[in-house]
């Protein structure tokens, strides 16, 4: 009797052990797919870019001649455009995002917070192509009629605001990028500010600080590193953003001071030229551009994640 029971027990535990280990290995395999994907991305781009890497090497990064007819390629104007548009985007987005995050966690009445958070999440959900479309037909004409003349008359002595402006330009692309990265910087900053211990605020209040002083001394300076992580995460998004930038930047290689000039970014040159690249070296050079873009965004994202993980721990919620 007893022996039978044990026997049955052993048998069933054997079966479930098989199920257990199979399932565990299956989930492990799926989880490891993220490493496989990262390796695959690097490999595919490297293979595609190899002819260009062999031909131009590191010179690719500092040369500004992009001449498909003669087979000479250099990505400097695109690197320049990417950096400048992202910088403009950060310049606009960072103060707005952090102020909004402060408003959401420290100042706003409770009934305002939830709807405002939803609005910001919806802004993040707008597809890039729609932002670009709206930007091209609505925002850019408005900027040209109202904002750019103002910039020119008040700050025109700076080299940035000189030169002709017709239609799409670097500044327009930077502004649409700012709109696109504000939601992510705001929501990550909000998470960061929320994780600042309440005791920190109470101590400052107890010393007689005003609300702004509490925010500045006890909250913002405490959260500095996390906020920096949020900003870098936004930068990572800005560097690789494609559609809206492609539609607003004017798509002409440019290196210079004026933000009213049309430009080109690493991502936009890919979107514009890849399907037209018939020559193998040409398409290889575009893969090379993709490799540079991947390298830059991976570095920036890794830095952001390290900052965020070391500030807030692994419990940070995922950001879409």
């Amino acid at each position: 009797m007893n022996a039978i029971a044990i026997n049955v027990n052993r048998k069933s535990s054997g079966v479930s052990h098989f199920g257990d280990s199979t399932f565990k290995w299956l989930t492990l395999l799926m989880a490891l797919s993220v490493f496989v994907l990262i390796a695959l991305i690097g490999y595919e781009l490297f293979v595609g870019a190899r002819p260009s890497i062999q031909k131009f090497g590191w010179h690719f990064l500092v040369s500004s001649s992009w001449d498909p007819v003669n087979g000479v390629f250099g990505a400097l104007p695109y690197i320049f455009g990417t950096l400048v548009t992202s910088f403009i985007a950060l310049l606009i987005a960072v103060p707005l995002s952090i102020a909004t995050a402060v408003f959401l966690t420290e100042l706003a009445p409770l009934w305002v917070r939830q709807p405002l958070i939803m609005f910001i999440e919806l802004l993040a959900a707008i597809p890039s192509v729609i932002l670009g479309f709206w930007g091209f037909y609505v925002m850019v004409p408005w900027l040209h009629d109202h904002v750019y003349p103002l910039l020119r008359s008040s700050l025109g002595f700076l080299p940035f605001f000189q030169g002709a402006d017709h239609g799409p330009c670097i500044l327009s692309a930077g502004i649409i990028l700012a709109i696109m990265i504000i939601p992510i910087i705001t929501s990550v900053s909000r998470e960061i500010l929320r994780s600042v211990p309440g005791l920190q605020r109470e101590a400052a209040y107890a010393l007689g600080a005003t609300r702004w002083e509490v925010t500045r001394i006890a909250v913002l300076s405490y959260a500095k590193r996390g906020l920096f992580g949020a900003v870098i995460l936004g930068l990572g998004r800005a560097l690789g953003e494609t559609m809206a930038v492609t539609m607003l930047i004017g798509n002409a290689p440019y290196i210079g001071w004026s933000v009213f000039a049309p430009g080109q970014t690493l991502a936009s040159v890919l979107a514009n030229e890849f399907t037209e690249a018939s020559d193998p070296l040409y398409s290889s050079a575009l893969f090379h551009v993709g490799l540079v873009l991947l390298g830059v965004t991976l570095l920036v994202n890794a830095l952001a994640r390290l900052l965020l993980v070391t500030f807030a721990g692994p419990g940070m919620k995922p950001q879409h």
Partner: protein
Amino acid sequence: MTAANHKLRNFKDALMQIVALLCAIIVVTPLVLIFYHLIKLGFSSINWAFFTQLPGPVGEPGGGMGNAIVGTFILLGQAAVIGVPVGVLGGVFLAEYGSPKSSGWIRFAADILNGVPSIVWGLVVYGLVVVPMHGFSALAGGVVLGLMMVPLVMRTTEEVLHLVPAGYREAALALGVSKWKTVLQIVVRTALKGIATGVLLAIARVAGETAPLLFTALGNNIWARSLTQPIAALPLQIFNYAMSPYDEWHRQAWAAALVLLLLVLFINIGVRFLTRDRWKAKI
């Protein structure tokens, strides 16, 4: 002296509160404006033909985006077939099996993967699917969107599984239920709504992706016939029409943008109502 100082501090306090409020208003203004303009410019072009007909000849009025709408759903279906199982099972590993160290690394890799620019995904799948198959295809479009979904679904699945109380697992294990059955029938089932939310949000996210489709699905003006042929998609069609010189196409692009935005926002708002109670805090 102190009174003046006090006044100054209070003034600064009030000023900064107003500045923060203004910033918050500026931040949400584009959303309102985009909505307003899309409705103003796009609503009048939405009619039965828009949903059911093929694009008309260049510059002529009429025609619709039926093929692009169908194409988008076909692409999303393929993406879900790839992205959901891999993402959900990977998330199960992160939450239920992984050690803090291994989960930490996988989570880090998934977050890094999330930051890969969408245009780069397009290049990768071009090399991976389009070149071996000798042509652009709906399959390549589905693959690229599916791969992009993997890290998104993985991370949200993990998050919601962490919300399932440990007592549920312990109770099941104490009753002699094997671990994998506990995970599948107790933990995953309890968190099913939350997982579905994550999946829907990931679908909404890739539904609007344009850049990765440029070199994979390519787009066309006919009804989808097979997965090995190029296929039209709503975001691609918006891009092509928006950049064309024809007014009639612009009108259609506004309508398509409105439809796409409503689809995306509908999913985003919908899941919020679906999962108002428990999962709200995390997703």
